[in-house]
């Protein structure tokens, strides 16, 4: 071919892999700490999957309802995650997200406003008060553009001070990292290729921040873009880090199901937040039948009360359409299975009969636009056809909650955003991911920078490791007997979608694992035709092994966890089991195979657990834990008496 085997070398202090919200926020922080920072993006700069986020960024600023504060936000997050969250992450997130949002305004963001000129906040599933800072329904785009423009402004400063835009922060667009390189147990660099030219590039850096997003491309029906192949998850595993909570995948309840070309694309939850209701083919508003006991106190059981809530949220319970995503996804799944679905296999989401056309166009402009242009449906006149779509992975790199540093045997590796695990427990609340990106992106970037400060010598990249990485990357192009990567991806998607989907069963999971083992053999022999220049077949062939190892983690953990909780539903174990709440399933790589271990959850600090009332805790905790809670309460009482 025309390509050379030359490897371009770069030296940086901090390399951030991923240019979505978390990656850009981490890079800004590392650069502000004075580090030479590289941002690696699989796509063009500013195209990251964060642009797809519609609803908003949750932050307890209390602009719309002054009763909101971080404690309430913390409670909602823990409830949403069914108490499996890393409590410290949930705490930091609730405390710091308002500052992160306000900071965006100083970068030039323009959120929608309240009457008194503050940032407006909207209602969303699982959030007790209106809490989501938003810009119509294109909040993710605003976030990415703002961070992108902040990076440009930092580059302009560098140009002024040092004469070059790229003196201290550079974006490597359309570049994929295939391997992290270690010096002993320390991160020494990252190896990858330019998608445009197919040329190899080596970044020597003592600290790497993973911000690669999720794993949705392993599923057929997904709202995720092609980039979501679990690269960061797999890179972390291969570097000796661990993954937790990989069994928990969020299926967004309302993806478009018609026409086939847009299957999976998201219909924002704000449609429901603004009054949209779910109906089955009989025209029945069915969500009232699916309010679980743990939520009875907060959700209405009749239409009259639910409808009053939109105008008087203080004196009425919320409509059940706004239950956390896992509940709604399961309800839709049950309606369709019971034969009350739409022709295309979904249910109806109706806003047309609920709001005047003008109001719909004003509040939900991109949704109106999306349905009009993509599906030729006018949502001000007709209901939408929606169904669950794979949307978000709660699981990810197991990190230190304060610094984002990866656990396991590796040092110098950090993770933030969807690729990290723990923050959202077993189920993420809508709106919490955008604020998660900002809070933990900043933390990971800052701690990566201070990690490099305490090093006395730079870790060295070994020549052998680079040669191996080159061979692995070129292998699919040099084989011509293997299978086409596209058909392998389709097979992987079929296994994951059919056997490790929303509802899981032991037999199917066992079957899935044996099929994944077969696929592993086939993926090892995949071949890509064509050359190295912008060859999507080759790129997919290299991504496949990441998708595969991450899918194995999900299937193994799903088989192990014998209960239903949040984004993991076992038909053979349909209820939540307090004993399982105390356990995180941790995946590590042992040679080539995924090894699974049980690890107890950290104990929630007393002042945080005291934010909940006993009756609520009783639904989640074991008797033993409840006894501890009672003892705590007694102590506190005695303290007061004294």
């Amino acid at each position, binding site marked *: 071919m025309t390509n050379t085997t030359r490897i371009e070398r770069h030296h940086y202090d901090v390399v951030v892999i991923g240019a979505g919200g978390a990656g850009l926020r981490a890079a800004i922080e590392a650069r502000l700490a004075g580090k030479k920072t590289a941002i690696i993006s699989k796509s063009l700069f500013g195209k990251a999957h964060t642009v797809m986020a519609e609803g908003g960024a949750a932050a307890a600023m209390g602009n719309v309802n002054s009763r909101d504060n971080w404690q309430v936000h913390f409670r909602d997050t823990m409830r949403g995650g069914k108490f499996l969250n890393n409590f410290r992450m949930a705490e930091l997130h609730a405390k710091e997200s308002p500052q992160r949002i306000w900071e965006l305004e100083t970068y030039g963001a323009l959120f929608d406003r309240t009457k008194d000129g503050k940032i407006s906040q909207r209602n969303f599933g699982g959030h007790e008060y209106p809490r989501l800072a938003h810009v119509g329904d294109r909040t993710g785009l605003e976030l990415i553009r703002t961070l992108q423009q902040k990076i*440009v402004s930092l580059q302009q400063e560098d140009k002024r001070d040092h004469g070059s835009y790229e003196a201290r922060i550079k974006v490597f667009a359309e570049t994929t990292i295939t391997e992290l390189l270690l010096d002993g147990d320390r991160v020494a660099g990252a190896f990858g290729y330019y998608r445009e030219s197919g040329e190899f590039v080596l970044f020597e850096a003592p600290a790497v921040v993973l911000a690669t997003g999720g794993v949705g491309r392993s599923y057929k029906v997904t709202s995720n873009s092609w980039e979501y192949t679990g690269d960061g998850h797999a890179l972390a595993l291969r570097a000796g880090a661990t993954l937790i909570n990989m069994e928990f995948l969020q299926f967004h309840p309302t993806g478009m199901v018609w026409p086939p070309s847009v299957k999976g694309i998201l219909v924002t939850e704000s449609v429901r937040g603004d009054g949209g209701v779910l109906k089955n083919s009989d025209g029945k508003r069915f969500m009232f039948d699916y309010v679980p006991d743990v939520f009875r106190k907060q959700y209405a059981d009749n239409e009259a009360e639910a409808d009053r809530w939109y105008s008087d949220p203080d004196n009425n319970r919320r409509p059940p359409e706004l239950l956390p995503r896992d509940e709604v996804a399961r309800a839709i799944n049950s309606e369709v299975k019971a034969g009350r679905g739409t022709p295309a296999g979904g249910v109806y989401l109706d806003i047309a009969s609920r709001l005047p056309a003008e109001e719909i166009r004003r509040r939900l402009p991109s949704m109106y636009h999306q349905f009009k242009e993509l599906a030729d449906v006018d949502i001000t006149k007709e209901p939408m056809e929606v169904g669950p779509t794979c949307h978000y992975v709660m699981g990810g790199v197991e990190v230190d909650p304060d610094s984002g540093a990866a656990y396991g045997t590796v040092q110098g590796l950090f993770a933030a955003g969807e690729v990290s695990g723990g923050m959202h427990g077993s189920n993420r609340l809508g709106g919490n991911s955008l604020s998660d990106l900002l809070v933990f992106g900043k933390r990971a970037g800052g701690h990566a920078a201070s990690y490099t400060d305490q090093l006395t010598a730079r870790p060295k990249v070994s020549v052998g490791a680079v040669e191996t990485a080159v061979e692995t990357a070129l292998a699919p192009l040099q084989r011509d007997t293997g299978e086409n990567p596209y058909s392998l991806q389709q097979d992987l998607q079929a296994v994951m979608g059919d056997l490790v989907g929303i509802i899981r069963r032991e037999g199917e999971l066992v079957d899935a694992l044996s099929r994944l083992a077969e696929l592993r053999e086939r993926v090892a022999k995949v071949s890509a035709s064509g050359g190295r220049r912008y060859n999507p077949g080759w790129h997919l062939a290299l991504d496949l092994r990441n998708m595969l190892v991450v899918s194995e983690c999900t299937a193994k953990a799903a088989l192990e966890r014998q209960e239903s909780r949040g984004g993991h539903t076992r038909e053979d174990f349909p209820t939540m089991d307090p004993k399982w709440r105390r356990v995180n399933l941790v995946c590590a790589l042992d040679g080539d195979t995924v090894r699974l271990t049980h690890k107890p959850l950290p104990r929630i600090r007393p002042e945080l657990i005291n934010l909940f009332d006993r009756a609520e805790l009783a639904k989640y905790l074991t008797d033993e834990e409840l006894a501890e809670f009672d003892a705590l309460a007694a102590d506190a009482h005695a303290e007061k008496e004294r």
Partner: protein
Amino acid sequence: MGNNGSPAAGKPAAKRQFRIWRGDETGGDLQDYMVEVNEGEVVLDVIHRLQATDAPDLACRWNCKAGKCGSCSMEINGKPRLSCMTRMSTFEEGETVTVTPLRTFPVIRDLVTDVSFNYEKARETPAFAPPPGVAPGDYRMQQVDVERSQEFRKCIECFLCQNVCHVIRDHEENKQSFSGPRFFIRAAELDMHPLDAKTDRKEYAQAEQGLGYCNITKCCTEVCPEHIKITDNGIIPMKERVVDRRYDPLVWLGSKIFRRGDTPQSTASSAGKESVVHSGARQAGVHSHAGGSHDPAAEVQAQKGVNWHREVPHPTAPAVDASGKLPLTELTFDRAAAPSPFGDDVTFPLPPEHLNFAHPSQDEKH
């Protein structure tokens, strides 16, 4: 939604004729494909099907497939479109669909073009200037005031407006001094931002971004997938107010004598600034490759010869941390100053075997 029915009830897949441009910067041509098309699909679905079947290495950018990221811009039957937003049902049955890369930008491979021009221009546009003395959290703005800027912030940077703009589509030489509609609305957005502290956005657009080249054919507005009124709400108000502020009979007379008033206006705009290198030399058509720099000022400089008053970045000490010390990495790092954009270990000229150019005919022999 009953009018659509289920996919099963839809029409069976039909074979359709596609002509797709394949090649790279050394050349290429349209290739014919017969490909299956199902009801409800868009052009991007068909391209994906081609990748999965006949043309696995067909290069094409895409991300969200929902008209939100602006990656899959291409020209479909000659019209600049997002392929994820172009429904197959908009074509006649039996109509051949021709797909070509964006014409204004250099081809990398097949449907992928080098859009770095846009990122360079983005970098030259001065960023938001936060209002001094306003703490984070204390920003107060009214909805009606932010809405004007919000319209422009809807931009998904698909660069279709840049692609279709005559000023650069047909005149490669204008790229140096013309930022294009995308960055006019960026300037307009900041100009209309209620709290932006920089007050010369319009003057800047006129003097540095080449706003004067725009002759308001509205092609950019026509292709915008976000339906942003680029010309009416962005460019025209910027042009009008630039004229307003400068109203002066002599300038007016000058603008009647000189084309579009570029000379007097840009002089006027630089008068308020420190820099003196901007001059009237940067009007439509005046251009050279002197210096090969993308900094227009530097180019003018190069044409004039040496200017000892030219502003150059002052040598600065490396940044220190909170304790007033050098960050340790500066010491453990094995080289000083900015990283080379070509990689730290590259020296020029490159040895010929490291070049990734090969003559097309030589390549075929392999």
